[in-house]
């Protein structure tokens, strides 16, 4: 069953603006990850945040995690046309197969030059 649900489904912004995508999930997690997919290609891992972390940064990326609300957000600052892609959140649940990721349906980000 799908665990993460991204919001919005699609986002269109101008180059230089910030882009924020949200992810909600349903059950307790071990960690939450964000992946990026360029059109017609495989996914690339961006960042992992553990369940006991609240915020993490990597370059122009900032991820927050609120386990009480079962939600996460991905912020891309000073966006570029090359950031145009689909972005997916994925969760690793507690217990069971702890190497199994459950993906959301993704947010399609378009950055206009």
């Amino acid at each position, binding site marked *: 069953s799908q665990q993460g649900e991204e919001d919005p489904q699609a986002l269109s912004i101008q180059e230089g603006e910030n882009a924020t995508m949200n992810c909600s999930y349903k059950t307790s997690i071990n*960690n939450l990850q964000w992946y990026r997919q360029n059109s*017609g290609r495989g996914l690339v891992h961006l960042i992992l945040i553990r369940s006991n972390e609240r915020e993490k940064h990597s370059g122009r990326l900032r991820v927050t995690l609120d386990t009480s609300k079962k939600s996460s957000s991905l912020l891309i600052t000073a966006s570029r046309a090359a950031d145009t892609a689909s972005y997916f959140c994925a969760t690793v649940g507690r217990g069971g197969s702890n190497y199994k990721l459950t993906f959301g349906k993704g947010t399609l980000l378009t950055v206009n030059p």
Partner: protein
Amino acid sequence: DVKVTQSSRYLVKRTGEKVFLECVQDMDHENMFWYRQDPGLGLRLIYFSYDVKMKEKGDIPEGYSVSREKKERFSLILESASTNQTSMYLCASSLGLAGGLETQYFGPGTRLLVL
């Protein structure tokens, strides 16, 4: 860098054909995965393997089987292809770390069309 390769980028098959999708990783990863990706449905796990000759069903295994005879290679088999198996197929691998801190490395995908 981890490299995950898939045997074909595009594949066209006829209904009823047996189809093999091959995936190879070069980083000695323990775990390998097969997903399919469809518009509006996201990525769905078909099968995964946590060791040679070991496999476990994912969320949508019906109509598929897998084979892992060597650590670096994981094959997805469509025994009798059907039109509803037209999709993008993605292979991934992960190291096999304890504690659930797994990130997955993906291949470029195979776009399969079943006519």
